């Protein structure tokens, strides 16, 4: 099995999706000749031509709005928003138009659009390049919101998203773009487990850590450190922020009785809040401690020289675990 970076896995996943379905086309700023600012689409214009890998004008609302029109015509657009902080000019098209089309047309119209967004911080960049906007989308009925944390998922989840008949917000952990891991490219798309399945990455008995995207590497690091102290953490990669795979989360919470949720996005109204509420309803009698959150703070993303103080790290996760264990 090849070792691929997340960038290369996404690139090859899209290549395969474009080979499989001639209606799949890519659109975005600088994705053609340049291959995207992160090189995720590198070489695809050479392979598929400039009518399937389209450099768009510099207008995010235009990109999503015209993708809706293309989808109505029968295409399956995959659009790139260059950075997380640039998605907001397209917000109306995404939450007001795209998300509701199936519902308002009583199922007559379907918009199979994938919106790829590199997201999250930790890259030392300037304002508006390190945002975690997932809660806005996870709170919008009609959108599927997913994120990968390794190359295997990047390769398959992008194909599953493109194949989905619903709009998918596909969040790419840009801090981990160049992290390499094994990809089983020999599998078949219909054999891959559901796009919305949460995955137990390492089994444990004392406390469950739920993370996603860029925080997974941090959660696994915390689990290794905890193990040295004899504390057994179960790490779950959420993978899908909407819908949530509650059965997997409930099973783990019932087993360990303690849960810590980790995300870079601000705490209040974050994905963690939804999970904590549902676990407290479903696992009330099994929980040994309140569900904890380790997150970005309720402030705009800070200047990069202090982003390490904002981003969840292993130490903060272990603090939360210790608190849980103290109940």
């Amino acid at each position, binding site marked *: 099995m090849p070792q691929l970076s997340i960038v290369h896995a996404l690139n090859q996943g899209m290549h395969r999706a474009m080979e499989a379905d001639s209606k799949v086309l890519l659109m975005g*700023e*600088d994705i*053609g*000749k*340049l*291959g995207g*600012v992160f090189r995720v689409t590198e070489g695809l214009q050479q392979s598929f031509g400039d009518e399937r890998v389209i*450099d*768009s*004008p*510099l*207008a995010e*609302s*235009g990109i999503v709005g015209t993708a809706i029109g293309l989808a109505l015509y029968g295409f399956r657009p995959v659009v790139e928003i260059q950075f997380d*902080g*640039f998605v*907001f*000019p397209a917000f109306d098209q995404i939450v007001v138009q795209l998300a509701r089309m199936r519902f308002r047309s009583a199922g007559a119209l379907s918009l199979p659009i994938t919106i790829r967004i590199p997201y999250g911080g930790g890259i*030392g*960049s*300037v*304002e*508006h*390049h390190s945002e975690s906007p997932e809660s806005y989308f996870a709170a919008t009925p009609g959108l599927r919101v997913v994120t990968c944390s390794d190359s295997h998922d990047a390769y398959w989840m992008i194909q599953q998203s493109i194949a989905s008949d619903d709009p998918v917000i596909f969040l790419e952990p840009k801090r981990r773009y160049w992290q390499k891991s094994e990809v089983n490219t020999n599998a078949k798309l219909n054999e891959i487990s559901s796009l919305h399945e949460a995955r137990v990455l390492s089994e444990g008995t004392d406390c469950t850590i739920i993370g996603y995207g860029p925080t997974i590497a941090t959660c696994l690091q915390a689990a290794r450190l905890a193990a040295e102290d004899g504390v057994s953490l179960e790490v779950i990669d959420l993978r899908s922020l909407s819908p949530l795979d509650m059965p997997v989360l409930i099973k783990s919470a019932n087993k360990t009785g303690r849960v810590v949720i980790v995300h870079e996005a601000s*705490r*209040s109204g974050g994905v963690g809040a939804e999970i904590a509420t549902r676990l407290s309803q479903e696992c009330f009698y099994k929980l040994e401690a309140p569900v904890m959150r380790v997150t970005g*703070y*309720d*402030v*705009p993303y*800070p*200047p*990069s*020289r*202090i*982003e390490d*103080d*904002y981003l969840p790290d292993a*130490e*903060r996760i272990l*603090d939360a675990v210790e608190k849980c264990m103290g109940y």
Partner: protein
Amino acid sequence: MDQLDSVVQLLDSNGSFANHSQYISTLSDSELFDFYRDMVLVRALDEQATALQRQGELGLWAPLLGQEAAQIGSARAMRKQDFAFSTYREHGVAWCRGVDPVDMLSFWRGTKHQGWDANQYRFYGYQIIIGAHALHATGYAMGAYLSRNTETGDAGKDQAVMAYFGDGAMSEGDVNEAFVFAASYQAPVVFYCQNNQWAISEPTRRQSRVPLAYRAAGFGIPGIRVDGNDVIACYEVTKQALDRARSGGGPTLIEAITYRMGAHTTSDDPTKYQVFSDVELWRDRDPIERLKVYLRAKGVLNNELESEISDEAAALTERMRKGCRELPDPNPLSMFNHVYSESDLNIDEQRREVETILSRSQNN
């Protein structure tokens, strides 16, 4: 579209000067010398910042190389009471507004989101989101009009507003909505589009089938094309548009045609998409070189003065290197400041969390 048809130019690329029928320059020799000095220093500033990024002192930098005349000419046309809204590339405008270059670096080093007080310099912070500030500039101009700070005839009072953006921004909804509002209310704003031919990797023809200034007509705004590498033309065209705006004549769209001689940012690799011969063509149109030829022929510039400016540039870059490295990292707790105008229980609680973490790491 050939870029230089029907374009206002007073100083050609060989350094020959001729007044334009609608733009008669009254700039004095000493003003022209100052423009030259500004451009040389700003280029030095830009090269130094690029080098600092390469050395790992800055996270990123967006070079202005090639756009010195477009920025200096237009910004020197502003009066003290005017206000400029800019993108992340307008270091030359920041310079003219009096912003300290070390304060410019703080944004790119990641110590601050805004390195200066916008009201003190009457210069907004660097705007990353393409075109968003065109609306802010228009609203600010509406404010000047509603506050009766235009059309008084008092040269020290009447205000106009500059909105700087690039060719890529012409596609954004916000910029087009700004044109609608500015035209509707005849707001005293000058839209100054530096067409540097590239939105990262995309040529201007991806954004428009017609010269960008032609778009203005559809909004009921005058559109003017100016040679963006001719500092005299940029000054005169902008000055006339600002004066028209402050005296009740409404908005103008200026397209300053120039070329991005550097990368989009230090993260970019333009060799992947730029054509070498284009770059060479524009190198011959260098904004500094042509003014140098003109001023030397006029006797305004000589070796001695050149060497004085070089010394000044060396001192400036020395100060930038030192100042950049000495920029203090923010206190992590500062991220909890200024989220709201008043203290907030939730924010205070989270600040205490970080205090605990910090005091523990200090004790270890």
